[in-house]
């Protein structure tokens, strides 16, 4: 759109140009008609008429040649000095100088192009292809997640992509809106200024361009009510002759990165706490034993406690290692044919002493049917134990926890239902995330935020099953796991059997 002025000038010239042809032809026709009339009416002799006609056509031809030359000079002048014709490009657009340069070069190299028509066609093609490229570059920039702001050599804002538009402040004294134009390219720089954080960075980068080409800064910025952490990198741009072209500022949202860091720090802190608790118990007991504080029967009891605490530490370390190994694929998955209820029974046996300790009624209502599954027994067992131990952990003393199994179409369904404190709705989408802990329930029991992540991984990634959760605060939570039914090994053995017998 910025070169429409140019095109119209060009069109005007073209119109003039063809108009001149038509004028000349009309003139010659008129002259020959008049000539004929004169000869027919015998006013002039044919010799004179011929001379008149010749003179008229020669004069016309000379006039045409002259005007063509004139036009050509005019166009060449325009090409030589693009700023004269299109000052708006230089002022508005970053690519303006690129266009001017391209046109100039083309004009110089293509000396054999003698007619303005050829130049015109070339220019049109050139302008079109450049326009397409520009639209492409702009749409690419607009679809980037990172904000890009380009400043000219005089620190004026030349370009912002879609994301970077949020870092602009509209100067209050400007009432003129440019919302009709989706192209931020053409917007005059006066209208908008960047936020103070970026302005400061820009000023420093330009000021210290001798020392380093780029500078970075991190800042917090609120846009549409959402506060995020951003990192901005400003780089000075220069052409091949080290002349300053301007500065580009790239702004990245590092909110997720920062979140990950915090999550990791929290995870390490919670792991440390989990490890330190049993260690404190062990240390306290051992010191008392060393000091001879206890009677022999008390000492016996303390040794038992120490043993338990060490088991607890081992379990904790193992579960962390397990998750790391299973997730990274180091552990070999050993899927075999099993009966699901057998696995569930084993898991139930592991968990029922803990439930009894908390005075929780733990019931296993297992299906009467034989549920054939092709699973890694230890892994699936671990997943069920994790679910059950969570259920027991987050259920207050005296209430109940239920483990159920049933057959449904082509899957085996396992249900772990508790009558505990429940999970608030806004936490439900996150409960299978690593390190995530429900903030409301965080304090009611110790945990690493790894248990459900491991369950999810084992059920979905290892066993092609699915897991879902329903929960109501203060009423309880129900985890439903589905595992595809069917043995796989027997089929294979049967297939292999005949050739073995033969």
């Amino acid at each position, binding site marked *: 759109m910025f070169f429409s002025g140019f095109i119209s000038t060009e069109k005007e010239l073209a119109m003039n140009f063809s108009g001149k042809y038509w004028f000349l032809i009309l003139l010659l026709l008129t002259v020959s008609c008049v000539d004929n009339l004169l000869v027919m009416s015998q006013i002039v002799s044919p010799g004179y008429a011929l001379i008149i006609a010749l003179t008229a056509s020669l004069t016309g031809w000379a006039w045409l040649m002259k005007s063509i030359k004139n036009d050509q000079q005019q166009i060449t002048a325009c090409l030589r000095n693009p700023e004269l014709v299109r000052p708006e490009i230089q002022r508005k657009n970053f690519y303006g100088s690129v266009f001017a340069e391209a046109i100039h070069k083309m004009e110089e190299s293509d000396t054999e192009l003698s007619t303005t028509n050829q130049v015109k066609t070339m220019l049109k093609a050139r302008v079109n292809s450049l326009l397409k490229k520009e639209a492409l570059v702009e749409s690419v920039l607009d679809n980037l997640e990172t904000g890009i702001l380009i400043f000219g050599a005089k620190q004026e804002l030349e370009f912002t992509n879609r994301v970077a538009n949020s870092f602009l402040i509209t100067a209050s004294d400007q009432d003129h809106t440019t919302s009709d134009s989706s192209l931020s390219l053409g917007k005059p720089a006066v209208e908008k200024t960047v936020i103070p954080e970026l302005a400061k960075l820009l000023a420093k980068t330009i000021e210290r361009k001798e020392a380093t080409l780029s500078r970075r800064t991190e800042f917090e910025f609120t846009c549409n009510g959402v506060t995020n952490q951003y990192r901005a990198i400003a780089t000075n741009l220069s052409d091949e002759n080290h002349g300053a072209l301007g500065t580009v500022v790239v702004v990245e949202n590092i909110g997720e990165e920062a979140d990950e860091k915090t999550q990791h720090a929290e995870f390490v802190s919670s792991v440390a706490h989990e490890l330190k608790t049993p260690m404190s118990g062990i240390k*306290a007991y051992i010191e008392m034993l060393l000091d001879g504080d206890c009677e022999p029967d008390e000492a016996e009891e303390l040794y038992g406690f120490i043993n338990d605490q060490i088991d607890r530490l081992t379990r904790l370390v193992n579960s962390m290692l397990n998750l790391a190994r299973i997730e990274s694929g180091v552990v070999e998955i050993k899927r075999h044919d099993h009966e699901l209820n057998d696995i569930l029974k084993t898991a139930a046996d592991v968990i029922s002493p803990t439930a009894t300790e908390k005075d929780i009624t733990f019931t296993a209502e297992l299906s009467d049917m034989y549920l054939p599954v092709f699973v890694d027994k230890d892994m699936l067992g671990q997943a069920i134990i994790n679910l059950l131990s969570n259920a027991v952990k987050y259920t207050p003393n005296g209430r109940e926890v239920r483990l159920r199994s049933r057959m449904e179409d082509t899957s085996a369904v396992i249900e772990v239902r508790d009558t505990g404190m429940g999970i608030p709705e806004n936490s439900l989408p996150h409960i299978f995330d690593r390190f995530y802990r429900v903030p409301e329930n965080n*304090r*009611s029991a110790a945990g690493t935020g790894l248990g459900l992540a491991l369950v999810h991984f084992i059920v979905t990634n290892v066993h092609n099953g699915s897991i879902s959760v329903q929960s109501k605060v203060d009423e309880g939570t129900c985890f439903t796991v589905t595992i595809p039914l069917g043995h796989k090994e027997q089929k294979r053995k049967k297939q292999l059997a005949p050739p073995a017998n033969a």
Partner: protein
Amino acid sequence: MNHLIYICDDDSHIVRAISMKLRKAGFEVECFPNGFECWEKAREQAPHMIITDLQMPLMNGLELCEKIRELETTRSIPITLLTGKGFEFDHNEYMQKLKITNVMVKPFSPKKLLTQVQESLNLTNDVIG
């Protein structure tokens, strides 16, 4: 009269170890699994001292300290805070703000804890005898 001490930790083994140590030293001890229960009891009967864990369900150690410092009858009793946290926890800040007498980092020595309890209550071994 024996000194009454409230011990507050969600880990039963830590509570057991501390209470054994303190009872043997002649203190009267009462144990709570979280800050809330301890506070409820402290409102009824103010102890001479409170030993509490930092991270606990329902009400954590810091919240408990705040409540204790708000209550007239318990405002000036010594508090020892047990914590599993290291440098991510600013000891000095909390010690000043909530007037926590001592901070002990887990794993801790029950013997040292006993000494600190005795110091906080201005006792010497002779008196307890």
